[in-house]
């Protein structure tokens, strides 16, 4: 009967009863993600790290478009052009670009046993200094750490030489190879372009003016990690690894981490915003200004504005893999927020807004277009759809210009035949915005009024058919075989859903008369195909880390071609003008322009001055005409929040948001109780049925034993 007792006596809360009144944020995790700042790349992982570690800058929590502001740094530095002496005697002077950083004093690392050197007996802390940044930059450079920012940081003067020195030290022998990492880094010497100029100041010297670097300094990838933590948390002798137990200077610190099962962080009592609120350091108080929508959504209520951060005491994430049960727990109030997926969409949203059943419970809906783009990439190295450097078919190579033109027309026709809106409506319930160019809304250079002429779907396909005829395939018939032209679409998996999506795609190109063949393989085989460049068309997407057009236009930059390298230009698109403009654009800030001399079409030299926006527009015009992609859509994230969960403003690149959010634990407890009144009658009915079944048996037994 004890089982029945538990059944009847208690509710359905998955959490300990003692937590009910505390400011704990509850959510779920699907699995554990590596949390070493230098190479964490998963989206949930970077979200956790944003609470634990702090980079030099962060984004303003409310302002849109995104605005960078100092966090550990006192100010955002400007590039200064300086002259440095040549590397060897007799060499000419070099031009370098300097960024001078001043950081705040009295910033403490998490109080942790790893900082108590050498005994590791009790938790200890120490102040963050400029040398910690030098150590962090060396970690970024260390090839063993496989840092995603390395391509950008190679522009730091002397970084590649330092990497070579480090590799040489590693190969020298067991003595150096077994040294603690910071000792090894010290032996490898300083990086020429990272100069510590004081306890709280350092300079970065770049060989190129490269503003993209500043975005990386606003990501947890570059957040300072103390060398003590790297040395102590090595994952052996019963200690966790740094990727399971990250240490930083953030407002939260790790409280518990059970792999794949549970992760929790708690308020860091040594955080400067808590110990020194009177200093009003940047990023330690809630913002005082924002957008109009923030005012309407209550994100600028006087209760929060200018108040010291953080608000929530503890974050807990428990494993919960099934989307449907997650949504159920959210509705019961056991999760504070939840992302809407396809299966739950019609339950949560009706007629473009939140469904009445949910809004009656005070649940709010937020919709945001993410900094992502999905597309079909044509393989530009392919004879049929591309513009290869040399056509494999000598007949085509002989008529090169004509075939380049015909293949381009084929790509343009296919662009016109793909109905993105249908895919968004059927497979994403409208949770995406149709893409006109690689740049999603919210990125500099995105023009909301721009319409790509080759991405305007017309059900009659008039223009597409005409282009296809001009490309030499009237009605889609390939004159070589007298059958519809066959084009192969490579897919990354064989999931039935992917296959359904592919069948829809087949149907769309079928209307044009093109026979799309599907080539569905395992993900690994797919990646191999991309790397070998052995495909015609594939479906792929890009998730940006920072809100700059450069990261999207990089996907079309010639030297970034994927064939043979596995890099990001999956279409292997090479266009000299595009590459030239990319190189100009990448070194500019949004409001800057650049001047160069070039030879005009008439053969005369001329001086050209273009702003960053103008350069981007010329690049998009090239993209539009050449059609190396069928640019498909920018997905949106739809999120639900309970009424007690405050100041939520989702954004895919702001990772430091945890400290700004708040939960009203009292309201949550009341509503949870109201929504989860135990339904006891089934338990009693069960008891009744068992009694009804057992009684006759007992009576029979008693009657028989008496006789």
């Amino acid at each position, binding site marked *: 009967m004890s089982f029945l007792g538990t059944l009847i006596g208690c509710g359905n809360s998955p959490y300990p009863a003692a937590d009910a009144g505390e400011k704990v944020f509850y959510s779920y995790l699907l699995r554990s993600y590596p949390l070493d700042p230098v190479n964490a790349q998963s989206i949930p992982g970077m979200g956790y790290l944003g609470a634990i570690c702090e980079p030099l800058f962060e984004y303003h929590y409310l302002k849109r478009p995104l605005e960078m502001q100092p966090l550990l740094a006192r100010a955002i530095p400007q590039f200064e052009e300086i002259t440095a002496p040549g590397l060897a005697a007799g060499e000419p002077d070099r031009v370098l670009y300097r960024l001078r950083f001043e950081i705040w004093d009295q910033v403490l690392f998490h109080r942790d046993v790893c900082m108590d050197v050498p005994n590791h007996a009790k938790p200890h802390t120490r102040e963050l200094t400029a040398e910690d940044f030098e150590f962090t930059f060396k970690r970024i450079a260390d090839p063993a750490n496989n840092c995603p920012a390395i391509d950008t940081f190679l522009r730091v003067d002397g970084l590649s030489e330092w990497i070579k020195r480090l590799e040489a030290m590693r190969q020298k022998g067991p003595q150096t190879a077994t040294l603690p990492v910071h000792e090894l880094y010290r032996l490898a010497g300083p990086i020429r372009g990272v100069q510590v100029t004081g306890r709280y100041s350092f300079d970065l010297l770049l060989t190129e003016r490269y503003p993209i670097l500043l975005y990386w300094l606003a990501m947890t990838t570059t957040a300072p990690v103390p060398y003590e933590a790297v040395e102590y948390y090595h994952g052996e002798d019963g200690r966790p690894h740094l990727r399971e137990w990250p240490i930083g200077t953030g407002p939260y610190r790790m409280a518990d981490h059970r792999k794949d099962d549970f992760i929790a962080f708690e308020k860091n009592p040594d955080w400067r915003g808590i110990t020194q609120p009177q200093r009003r350091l940047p990023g330690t108080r809630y913002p005082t200004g924002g957008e109009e929508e923030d005012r309407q959504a209550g994100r600028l209520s006087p209760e929060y504005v200018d108040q010291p951060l953080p608000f929530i005491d503890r974050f807990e994430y428990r494993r919960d893999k099934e*989307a*449907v049960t997650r949504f159920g727990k959210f509705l019961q109030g056991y999760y504070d927020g939840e992302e809407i997926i*396809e*299966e*739950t969409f*019609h*339950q949560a949203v009706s007629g473009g807004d939140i469904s009445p059943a949910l809004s009656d419970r005070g649940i709010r809906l937020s919709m945001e277009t993410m900094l992502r783009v999905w597309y079909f990439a044509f393989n530009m190295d392919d004879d049929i759809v591309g513009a290869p450097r040399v056509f494999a078919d000598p007949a085509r190579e002989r008529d090169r210009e004509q075939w380049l033109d015909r293949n381009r027309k084929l790509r343009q026709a296919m662009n016109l035949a793909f109905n993105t809106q*249908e895919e968004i*409506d*059927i*497979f994403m319930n409208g949770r995406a915005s149709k893409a006109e160019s690689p740049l999603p809304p919210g990125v500099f250079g995105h023009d909301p009024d721009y319409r790509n002429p080759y991405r305007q779907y017309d059900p009659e396909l008039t223009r597409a058919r005409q282009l296809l005829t001009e490309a030499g395939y*009237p*009605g*889609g*018939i390939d004159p070589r075989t*007298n*059958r*519809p032209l066959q084009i192969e679409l490579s897919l990354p*998996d*064989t*999931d*039935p*859903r992917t*296959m*359904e*999506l592919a*069948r*829809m795609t087949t*149907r769309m190109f*079928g*209307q044009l*008369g*093109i*026979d799309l063949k599907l080539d*569905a*393989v*395992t993900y690994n085989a797919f990646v191999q195909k991309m790397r070998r460049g052995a495909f015609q068309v594939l479906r792929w997407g890009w998730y940006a880390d920072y809100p700059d057009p450069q990261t999207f236009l990089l996907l079309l930059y010639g030297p970034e071609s994927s064939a043979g390298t596995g890099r990001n230009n999956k279409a292997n698109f090479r266009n000299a003008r595009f590459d030239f403009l990319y190189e100009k654009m990448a070194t500019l800030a949004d409001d800057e322009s650049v001047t160069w001399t070039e030879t005009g079409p008439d053969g005369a030299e001329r001086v050209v001055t273009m702003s960053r926006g103008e350069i981007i527009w010329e690049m998009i015009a090239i993209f539009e005409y050449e059609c190396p992609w069928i640019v498909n859509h920018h997905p949106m994230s739809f999120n639900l929040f309970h009424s007690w969960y405050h100041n939520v403003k989702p954004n895919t690149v702001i990772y430091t948001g945890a400290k700004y959010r708040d939960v009203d634990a009292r309201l949550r407890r009341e509503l949870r109780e109201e929504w989860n009144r135990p339904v006891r009658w089934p338990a009693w009915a069960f008891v009744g049925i068992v009694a009804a079944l057992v009684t006759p048996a007992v009576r029979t037994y008693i009657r028989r034993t008496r006789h």
Partner: protein
Amino acid sequence: MLGWQDYHTSNLVVALLLAISVAGAWYGRHNLFCRQFVRDFARRRLAVAAAALFSLFVGVALADSIAWCDPVAEENAENAGIEAFRPRTLIDRLFPRDFRESAYSAPLATNAFYGDQPLKHPGKHVLGTTIIGHDTLHETLKGFRPAMIIGAFTTLLVIPIAIVMGVLAGYFGRRIDDVVQYIYSTLASIPNILLLIALILVMGRGTLQVCIALGVTTWVGLCRLLRAETLKLRELEYVQAARALGMSHTRIICRHIVPNLFHIVLISFVLRFSWLVLNESILSYFGIGLEGSFGAMIVLARDELAREPVIWWNLAAASTALFLLVLTANIVGDAVRDLLDPRVRTAE
């Protein structure tokens, strides 16, 4: 789904199968044993009903394997569209061309499930449509072909292996027996599903690969039965007599052993069939099954149950079809075993 050219092969295979079954029936017409078998079978009402339904399914699968393209006139080619070049099977021809909507619609509905626009074929989709608007009845009927291919083709792969291995091991014993036992014990000790997945990951996807993988995991059971039966047969008087008269091993195996094993082969063929079809569904669950099979349909429809309002028709259609196919195969299989297995027969 049929490709461009392989429909000719498919047609040929159907013709061959029909020819074999007609020849078989012609031969069996005068065979006493067959006539007896048919008479006994006909007495079991349930088995006859199941056999009728099962033959219907086989018929659907065969009809879905006969395909041809309608000729496209040279001058019309440009406007014919891609569908004109696609071979259509007899089953496809039961439905009008372009018999689809843009997304879900409920069975016999007149308006789309989401959005309420009027359908192109209102009230015509008896079992509703799938996520991309294909008719569910059509898809379900097309699911019988992969199921039959898996069931029949795998069994045809398995039987020769099992007979050769089982008879050799049972008849010669000693070293050969040790080797065969070693092989099948090793295979049997690996969990079936893991072995299936591993094999398919190594060989790649495709109909033949799935059949081979299923074959590798199923021959063990039949092989064991055949080995045991051979052990018994080899000691019987007529085999001893044949040996004493100096007949060669090959002749003894071919004349006296193998023909006496055939009832086991037949029974196991019918009973294995449903097991194979069900296992293909499990493979589909892992994303490595056959395209268009019931398993694939069920996996796709799995998440539809979580929708609100629920979309039930795809899952219902695919699972009902799978259930009926497996049930009828089992009933027929049981009846065949009862009639052919001498032990069960004498018990009656």
